[in-house]
């Protein structure tokens, strides 16, 4: 980030700020893509307000580590190094997207970066990290696998089944619950009688913590500690408290929560917090941060242009990838009908 000519761009906090800012700007552009009518559908879940969770945990991961995410996973993927243009293209359902336009926002993945997949099933991606943990143990790879999910996923039984297995087998895995206080319209205290979510993980024998997501450095610290333990065979659970700044998906205006709460909630802004800290500790100044932000704007604007300019996938690609390429593709219904009516 050559633009930050002043001050200490080697600072870790600066790097975290930059990444968080990129995430936020990317998400804003996703919103614009939707408004432009260029997204594939409206099931777009923005992670604005949750940037410290993505950046805090991911910065504590190593190369070779793997992860799965929930449906609100853009930020996490970016924090692990995703190319925002290919992400945006995927979100637009285009051929050059990460998943060739088949997956979209909720089913994005990249094996090269260890992204075992986002999931549109609440809790659906969690047990895969237990499997990745088994692989790591079996192959002695030293890799940790991290499962990201929302507070809503604590309603899903598979989380407990997975945590129990991980603890029993001492696997190198970390369960990360991004507690943005809401599962769609349901505030966490209307989804459970005990909102201290980490207590459940502790009861299954995991190392378990809750951290406030306001300060990314706190998230980094907690993540490092837990991941270090996980790598040694002590699986862990980390709940990160934050606030979902906007609606559940693009069309939701959150009529079920009142404005005072929203205003208050949005004060837990990890991007702003990091910015203020950078300035307060004299690592960066306002101007250089503005310059950085402007640069990010340009970068992210380009992703939208890119996505819009790309092609839809070819219609014939529909029958590809149901099975391995070595296998015959399923017979299209139309072909079948022709064949049968032609008595062939």
């Amino acid at each position, binding site marked *: 980030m050559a633009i930050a000519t002043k001050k200490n761009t080697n600072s870790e906090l600066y790097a975290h700020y930059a990444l968080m800012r990129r995430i936020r700007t990317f998400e804003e552009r996703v919103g614009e893509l939707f408004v432009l009518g260029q997204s594939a*559908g409206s099931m777009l879940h923005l992670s604005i307000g949750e940037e410290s969770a993505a950046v805090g945990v991911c910065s504590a991961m190593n190369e070779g580590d793997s992860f799965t995410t929930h449906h609100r996973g853009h930020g996490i993927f970016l924090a692990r190094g995703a190319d925002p243009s290919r992400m945006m293209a995927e979100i637009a*359902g285009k051929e050059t997207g990460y998943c060739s336009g088949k*997956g*979209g926002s909720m089913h994005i993945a990249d094996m090269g970066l260890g992204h075992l997949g986002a999931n549109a099933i609440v809790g659906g991606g969690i047990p895969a990290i237990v499997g990745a943990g088994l692989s790591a143990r079996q192959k002695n790879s030293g890799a940790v696998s991290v499962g990201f999910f929302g507070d809503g996923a*604590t309603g899903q039984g598979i989380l407990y089944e997975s945590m129990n297995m991980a603890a029993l087998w001492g696997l190198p895995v970390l369960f990360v619950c991004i507690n943005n206080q809401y599962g769609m319209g349901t505030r966490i205290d209307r989804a459970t009688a005990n909102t201290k979510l980490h207590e459940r993980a502790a009861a299954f024998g995991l190392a378990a913590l809750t951290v406030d997501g306001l300060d990314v450095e706190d998230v980094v610290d907690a993540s490092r500690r837990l991941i270090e333990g996980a790598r040694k065979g002590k699986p862990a659970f980390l709940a990160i408290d934050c606030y979902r700044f906007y609606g559940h998906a693009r069309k939701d205006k959150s009529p079920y929560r009142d404005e005072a709460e929203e205003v208050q909630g949005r004060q837990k802004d990890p991007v702003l917090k990091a910015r203020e800290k950078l300035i307060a500790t004299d690592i960066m100044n306002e101007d250089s941060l503005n310059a950085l932000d402007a640069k990010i704007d340009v970068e992210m604007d380009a992703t939208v242009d890119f996505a819009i300019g790309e092609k*839809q*996938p070819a219609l014939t690609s529909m029958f590809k990838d149901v099975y391995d390429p070595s296998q015959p593709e399923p017979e299209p219904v139309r072909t079948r009908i022709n064949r049968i*009516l032609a008595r062939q």
Partner: protein
Amino acid sequence: MEITYREALRLALIDEMNANEDVIILGEEVGRYGGAYGVTKDLIKQFGSDRIIDTPISEAAIVGTAVGAAMTGLRPVAELMYVDFIGMTMDQLANQAAKIRYMFGGQIGVPMVLRTQGGTGRSAGAQHSQSLEAYVMHTPGLRLAMPATVTDAYHMLRQAMQQPDPVVFIEHKGLYTMKGELDVDKATAPWGKAKVVREGDDLVIVTYSRQLHYALAASEELAKSGIEATVIDLRTLNPLDFETILPYVKRAGRAMVVTESVLTAGVAAELGARISEECFDYLEDPVVRVAGEDIPISVSPLLEKNSVPTPELIIETARMMLA
């Protein structure tokens, strides 16, 4: 009155809740949020949070809770936000709800409704766009209703809420904003009966849910070139009303079944096999299955649209049959 499919469903819930105080509704976001597709909007204001129950995101336990409630005197209507989530509930649905009456020697039934919605049309991807009615149809003990029209949305939902056995009630996400005429006093047909929506001597199209509208649109188009189709809306897949269908197929000698359910071992397979068996001596052509492709649904709108039957495919197929 003219209202939307969504509104008709909502009205059915309201009317039946007023008629029967044992009815409760439970599911994710059915209360404050008003339902992901708005079907239960404001019901919580009218009936309170004891009868309109917001649940955690726990599909298996939602269905299991409904089972227990139904066994102890309530009439639960559980909502599964997307039929795609049925996988999490299949044990409670197929091993519990469907079998309790039988396993316990007829001592008790499970009079519950599982309301959900399915189908393509929102670029919602592989896990939010499926048509999974075949899993249900293949499970003895479960009734299965799939209304295609506004009036059926209302009447079939009320009828479902009066059934002695568990009913899976699958709406189509592409129909919620469709408008239509509703006569609250008169149902299209009794529960479990198919309806002949259009008559024509050249071929019979057997279908249900959103594909009814595609079939009707296709039929109008076909009529322009002199092909007249009978179009039958099955309405419920269990009970499956074959009596209504048979005379039409026997007369026309040609049948097409149209469904979004994936072709292999799905609804089209049952309908195809059954028509082939029961009308064997009358068929001029094989029964043609116009069904969902044997693939997952893509988020790409182009691929999504072509993963299930389109009116064009129905037209093309009918033309081939009558060529």
